Structure formats: structure tokens, C-alpha cells
């Protein structure tokens, strides 16, 4: 299908071929360092058509610097990232969610804390796009996972100016800043999918985004007891509170099949896990003594002051994902407590063309 060519607002460049185009974009600082797919007008038009958007449509506005994100720029960056046109509605929804005020897009993307956007996709679009929710789910290997997350990062770089050393002041950053997008394994889990827990109707597709630090991997293969399993996650959350940031906020918990089956066998739902970890993932100020932070133990409420990882049980985002073997799991810490909240947006799909 040849999309009709819309009228673009962006400057256009005539370049000899795709190799020269990549070199030109690299030299301009318009990439994340990896090669790009040249955003020809035809490919950009196809992305816009797949999301039923016109070039001037506003996907969202970054509120602090009043930067509108147009559909045209999103499509250009999506092509550069290597997206197929069918991925475009997911990229758009992720950016819409990130432009909601509670996500604090400016603060979380400019901060020295160096966060990335953890993007979780739910609903039928996951399978329609062939997204990965199993083996190596945080890693390489799936085009949709890799390029949707990368497209969002390229929009931040090119549209919002999140260039390292300029607006992006990250001290370290982390690998998720290249891409950090997964699907939830809804087919192999009896749990309520994340998006539905966050108010999206069953059968709809949605993305949830969280400004996060690098995932912390845990392992416990020595118990079938759900509380013991969750204690390992709780320990990692407490560790993050002591060594990184004590402030409560949205934590992500990614649970692969091996540990998930043990929790399911014990009839634990996501809500049971949230309530358990709300109670268990706590530290007292005096514990900073053993991680080299004795100087702040006497501040605030004093050594017995208690902090919770989660402000409420609902702060925990539980996601079923990961390969079938291995008693692993992951804790995904928030960038900076509740200063950036997870947000969820429904993926708008053009009525005429289904999910693809």
C-alpha cells in the first residue's frame, strides 16, 4: 500500500544514499550513537498513516519548556529507530503518557539521576506486533521491543533536546536509555495485566511508562514459599533505599515464569504481593550506618525513623515477563521517589486497519 504523501514541515536533505544519510545524521548529533534508518518521506508518511495522524498533530507537550511533540517528528524518529509503521501507535501512546504531568518528563529526563523510561505494553497489540515477553525480555532480540523504546529516546534527544551534557545531565545513565520496552506475558499468566489494574478496559491495548533506574536482578531458587520469594524482592528494594534513594514511589517488579508459577500455585495475586511488599520493604534511618551513610542517621526523624519503599501498596507495578527457566526476577527502582509517577495511556489504533 502506498500512503498518500502528506505535506511535511521539517527541513529536507538530499543525500547520495543511506550510508551517507547515516553519516550525516551522526555528524549532526541526531542519534543515540547507533546507526539510523534514513527517514525518507515515504517511510515517515507510512508511520503517520499507521497511526491515522497528520504531520501537524500534537502528540503531547512537555510542559516545563512548552515543547510540543508533533506527530511528524515522532514518525521521523520512529523510522530512524528502525520501527515498522505498525509500531507507531505504541510510540505515540508512550509519549502521550510521558507528557502527563505526574510523569514529570522534564525533571526525570534532565536529572543527574539518569533515568530511562521503562515501557510496558499490554493488550492485543503485543501479539500483533510480535513483541517479546519471555526469553531475554530486558535484552536484545526483538525488533518491536528494541525499536519502540529507541524511538522514544530519539524523540527525547531530537525534539526535547535531551542531549547528554546539555539538557540530559545524567551522571551515569544506564543501558535502558538506549531502549527499555517489554510486553507483559499475558498468555502465560493468570494475573490481571498491568494496564487493566491501572484502569484500562480488558481487550484494549495500552502502555505504562515509569522513569526508572537500571533493573536490579534477584534470584531465589531455594524455596516454594511465596513470602520467602517476596522477601528476596523486598531485600533488593530495601537495598535500593539504602544505597540509592530512600524515597517512596513506583517500583516495578518483573516476575518470570519459574517464580510466578510458585506464587500462582500458592494462589497469590498481584494485590497480595503489593500488600506484602508494602509491609516488608521498609528501612529505618539507622540502617544507613552499614552502607557508609552514618552522617545522615541523626537527621530528620532520627535513627528510628521508618521509610517505606511504597507510599501505598498500589505504588508497586507487577509485571509477568521473562523466560521460562530460572528463579530470577527484577526490581526496577524509581528515578527519584514519587517525583515522577508511572502513567498509562491507551494505544489508539485506526479503526479501519485493526492492530496492524
Amino acid at each position, binding site marked *: 500500500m502506498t500512503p498518500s504523501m502528506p505535506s*511535511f514541515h*521539517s*527541513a*529536507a*536533505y*538530499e*543525500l*547520495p*544514499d*543511506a550510508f551517507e*544519510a547515516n553519516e550525516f*545524521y551522526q555528524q549532526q548529533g*541526531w542519534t543515540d550513537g547507533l546507526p539510523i534508518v*534514513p*527517514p*525518507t*518521506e515515504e517511510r*515517515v508518511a507510512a508511520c503517520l498513516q499507521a497511526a491515522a495522524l497528520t504531520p501537524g498533530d500534537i502528540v503531547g507537550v512537555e*510542559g*516545563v*519548556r*512548552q*515543547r*510540543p*511533540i*508533533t506527530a*511528524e*517528528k515522532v514518525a*521521523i*524518529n520512529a523510522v*530512524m529507530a528502525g520501527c515498522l509503521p505498525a509500531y507507531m501507535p505504541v510510540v505515540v501512546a508512550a509519549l502521550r503518557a510521558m507528557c502527563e504531568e505526574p510523569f*514529570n518528563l*522534564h*525533571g*526525570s529526563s534532565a*536529572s543527574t539521576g539518569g533515568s530511562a523510561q521503562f515501557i510496558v505494553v499490554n493488550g492485543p497489540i503485543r501479539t500483533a506486533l510480535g513483541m517479546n515477553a519471555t526469553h531475554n525480555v530486558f535484552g536484545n532480540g526483538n525488533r518491536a521491543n528494541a525499536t519502540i523504546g529507541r524511538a522514544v529516546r*530519539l524523540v527525547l534527544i*531530537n*525534539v526535547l533536546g535531551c542531549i547528554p551534557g546539555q539538557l540530559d545531565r545524567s551522571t551515569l545513565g544506564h543501558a535502558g536509555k538506549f531502549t527499555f520496552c517489554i510486553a507483559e506475558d499475558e498468555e502465560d499468566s493468570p494475573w490481571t495485566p498491568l494496564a487493566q489494574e491501572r484502569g484500562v478496559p480488558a481487550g484494549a491495548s495500552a502502555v505504562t511508562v515509569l522513569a526508572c533506574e537500571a533493573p536490579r536482578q534477584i534470584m531465589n531458587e531455594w524455596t516454594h514459599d511465596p513470602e520467602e520469594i517476596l522477601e528476596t524482592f523486598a531485600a533488593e528494594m530495601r537495598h535500593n533505599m539504602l544505597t540509592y534513594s530512600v524515597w517512596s514511589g513506583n517500583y516495578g517488579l518483573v516476575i518470570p515464569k519459574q517464580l510466578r508459577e510458585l506464587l500462582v500455585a500458592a494462589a497469590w495475586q498481584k494485590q497480595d504481593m503489593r500488600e506484602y511488599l508494602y509491609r516488608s520493604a521498609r528501612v529505618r534511618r539507622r540502617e544507613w550506618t552499614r552502607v557508609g551513610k552514618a552522617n545522615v542517621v541523626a537527621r530528620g526523624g532520627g535513627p528510628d525513623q521508618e521509610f517505606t519503599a511504597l507510599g501505598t501498596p498500589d505504588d508497586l507495578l507487577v509485571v509477568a515477563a521473562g523466560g521460562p527457566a530460572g528463579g530470577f526476577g527484577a526490581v526496577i527502582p524509581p528515578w*527519584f521517589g514519587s*517525583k*515522577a509517577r508511572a502513567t498509562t495511556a491507551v494505544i489508539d489504533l485506526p479503526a479501519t486497519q485493526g492492530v496492524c
Partner: protein
Amino acid sequence: MSIRVLDPTASTPNGEMRNTPRLATLAGCTVGLLDNGKIRARELLDHVEEILRNQHGVADVVRLRKPDASRPAPAAVVADMRQCDAIISAVGD
């Protein structure tokens, strides 16, 4: 045979943005000092205020504060800035 590709950047949002002209002098001006809410920003700005008053002859200094470094300045703080001829934004930490 060449290819035609599009610019991914948005360098001029909202149509046009331009820098405010520089002030020729601070003497007689009202200068706003915006504290970003982090620790020690206040002490830093105390020192800046002293320099502005003693060495540059500013007419007035308006002290402003963001309650949260990670979020935008509240509308009331932005409104207070409008009375100023210049703003100095300080990042404490």
C-alpha cells in the same frame, strides 16, 4: 540517484523564541533570585544578593523559591518574576 530525508529535530518550538536583550547595567534594576529548592541554594543566593546590592547598585532584590527542584516553578512564582528586570536562577545541592 539520491534519497530525500527529513530533519528529526524541533529547534524552534512555538514558532519563534528569542533571547531577551541584555541589560546595559544592573544599577537601579529589580533582580529576582530564584532558589531551586535544593539545599544551600539559599546561602549561595544570600551571597549573590549582597554582591548585587553592594557592587552593582540594584534597586531591589526579589527572593523567589521553587518548592521542588524537579518540578516547574509554580504559577505564583512565575507571576512574581514579571516584576523583575532580570532573574538569576541558582542550583543548590
